């Protein structure tokens, strides 16, 4: 029986909180497991530095990911070369795995339009700040892959527990169910939509069970268990790309990855107003990084030396990315008008001239006083 064919409330787990194997391991090589560990440590370190940059006034508002590394890294590693990814705004770790450079992510949160430009060979959509809107885009892209006969392509889409309250989420899943699109809808249920707890988003016992109403499978997974996340996502992607019966053809799946946001919703948020530190501590016991570290040590995949090497590599990479992002000069006024249309209309030339006239007369600094 596929791991997807179970009760939506029967949470999939491979590692327990101590990193002991309690479920069937996914089909995954050791190298990938170590790479996943590396990427989780990298995402955690990046996150810590990004929060600190914001605190120092070197970056704008930033949404931290700490606690959610397993869900992001585990699922992104399950993707194949031809698959597409539609993120929300917190998946800096998954984006990194798929080829968005760290400095690009930093630039975006530093307020540079250049940070929104995804590299040409990377099929990751730009960050979606409005809630749940990307779920429909993901359905559309998957639908197109199906219509164009691209049988190796599946589409993974991230969104939060709060997003499941938006109409777009329901429309996206409904279309996917009706048109058999090769989608994996991946809900990062981190328990809190800013200050509103998961129980207040839906009276459903699980988010996974919502898939039933749209006619496809929903599965709940321990989102702080990277191997369980990998296993479930891999299976869902295989189903999405299964070309012919008897595999019943291409079908969507809803994955609910149960996890916790250790930090604030964004650096502008103060979670101590709405949740207890006891609760945070309970979830910190499920921290995905020590869990995978413990598993890797037991299997002889990592030792002190290897871990130190990873930590040092990660620190260097993040430091380099910060230096590189901070060395990008402030964009010039013409960037305001770039890429609004394919061809810049006359009124944009006039409006740019208005800015340039002021700069010429008074200097650039009058805009920044």
């Amino acid at each position: 029986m596929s791991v997807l064919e179970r009760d939506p409330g029967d949470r999939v787990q491979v590692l327990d909180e101590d990193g002991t194997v309690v479920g069937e391991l996914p089909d995954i090589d050791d190298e990938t497991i170590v790479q996943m560990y590396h990427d989780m440590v990298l995402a955690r370190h990046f996150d810590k530095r990004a929060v600190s940059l914001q605190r120092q006034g070197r970056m704008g508002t930033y949404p931290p990911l700490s606690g959610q590394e397993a869900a992001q890294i585990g699922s992104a590693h399950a993707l194949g070369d031809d698959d597409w990814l539609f993120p929300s705004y917190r998946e800096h770790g998954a984006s990194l795995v798929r080829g968005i450079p760290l400095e690009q992510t930093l630039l975006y949160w530093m307020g540079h339009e250049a940070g929104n430009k995804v590299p040409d060979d990377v099929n990751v959509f730009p960050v979606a700040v409005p809630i749940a809107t990307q779920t429909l885009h993901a359905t559309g892209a998957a639908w197109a892959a199906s219509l164009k006969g691209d049988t190796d392509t599946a589409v993974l889409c991230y969104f939060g527990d709060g997003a499941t309250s938006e109409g777009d989420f329901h429309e996206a899943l409904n279309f996917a169910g009706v048109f058999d699109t090769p989608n994996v809808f991946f809900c990062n249920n981190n328990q809190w939509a800013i200050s509103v707890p998961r129980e207040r988003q839906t009276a459903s016992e699980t988010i996974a069970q919502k898939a039933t109403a749209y006619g496809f499978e929903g599965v709940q997974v321990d989102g702080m268990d990277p191997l369980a996340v990998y296993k479930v996502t891999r299976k869902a992607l295989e189903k999405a790309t299964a070309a012919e019966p008897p595999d019943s053809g291409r079908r969507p799946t809803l994955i609910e990855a149960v996890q916790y946001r250790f930090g604030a919703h964004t650096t502008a948020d103060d979670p101590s107003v709405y949740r207890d530190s006891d609760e945070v501590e309970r979830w910190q016991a499920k921290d995905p990084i020590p869990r995978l570290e413990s598993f890797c040590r037991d299997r002889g995949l990592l030792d002190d030396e290897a871990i130190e090497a990873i930590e040092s590599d990660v620190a260097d990479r993040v430091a380099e990315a910060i230096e590189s992002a901070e060395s990008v000069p402030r964009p010039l006024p013409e960037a305001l008008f770039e890429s609004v249309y394919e061809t810049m209309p006359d009124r944009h030339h006039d409006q740019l001239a208005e800015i340039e006239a002021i700069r010429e007369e008074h200097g650039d600094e009058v805009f920044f006083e």
Partner: protein
Amino acid sequence: MSTHETTGQTQSLTLVQAVRDGLYTEMSVDEDVIVMGEDVGKNGGVFRATEGLWEEFGDDRVIDTPLAESGIVGTAVGMAAYGLKPVPEIQFSGFMYPAFDQIVSHVARLRNRSRGRFTCPMVIRAPYGGGIRAPEHHSESKETFYAHEAGLKVVMPSTPYDTKGLLISAIRDPDPVIFLEPKLIYRAFRGDVPEDEYTVPIGEAATRREGSDVSVFTYGAMTRPTMEAVEELAEEGIDAEVIDLRTVSPLDRESIVESFKKTGRAVVVNEAPKTGSLAGEITAIIQEEALLYQEAPVNRVSGFDVPYPLYALEDYYLPNAARITKAITETVEF
């Protein structure tokens, strides 16, 4: 019914505190008033505009909703028609679009469609505008969308005093009001605000500075750079009048025309993208009602016709004192 005691006292509040005080005051005098939205309860709103209201009035009157703007506004339509006075908050005006169908197709039109049998007295509050280094979709100024829609009133205050008075007027108004709050100046300064209930009428502009050379029409957060520019120009001998519109639908045509007839010259300052913005509507009012008084073309200092940029570029986007000064000088010297 009222449990609210008058004090006769005045407090020194920021604009966002005046929002909170307006809600508190009106909730105290009218038990049909309810606040609903994302994070408005225990969290007190992401800008603290509803701080302490949940503790004071409880879960049934200060409601944390699921994350669904269409759900918030759509259920508020039913609540308003049934007899409550909902004050839904949309966390940022850039997130109003899921509710746009409800606002345009139902909030604005329920009275008209039912020939007055059902009405929709609600106030949809949302912070708007740029300048706070916010993330994408958090800085837009799209009041034109709502001013374009018959059946809605659109209020955009610029002082703590007006904010409380206009908010109470809006809640008491028999028609729906879109109440757009200039978050750039949420905490920029304090002003005297009476503790008691009072109203500031919707649809009436305020003269912020009297002058005889040129009329400058503005509203919301743009009143500040406008006043800065005008005070500097006064030292150079240009005597500008500043009209703070306060309500952008309905516009106070009388005040606009009266001021223009006195000066014969006009500059409009707003941060919405220029094309189709209310600056054009104000220009048209002047053309229609005061053409023979006109001494110079009307000059518009607006945002540019681009998606609101990420913050590294927003200082070029937002009208500033230098641009306003240049426009006023050109208009006066024409």
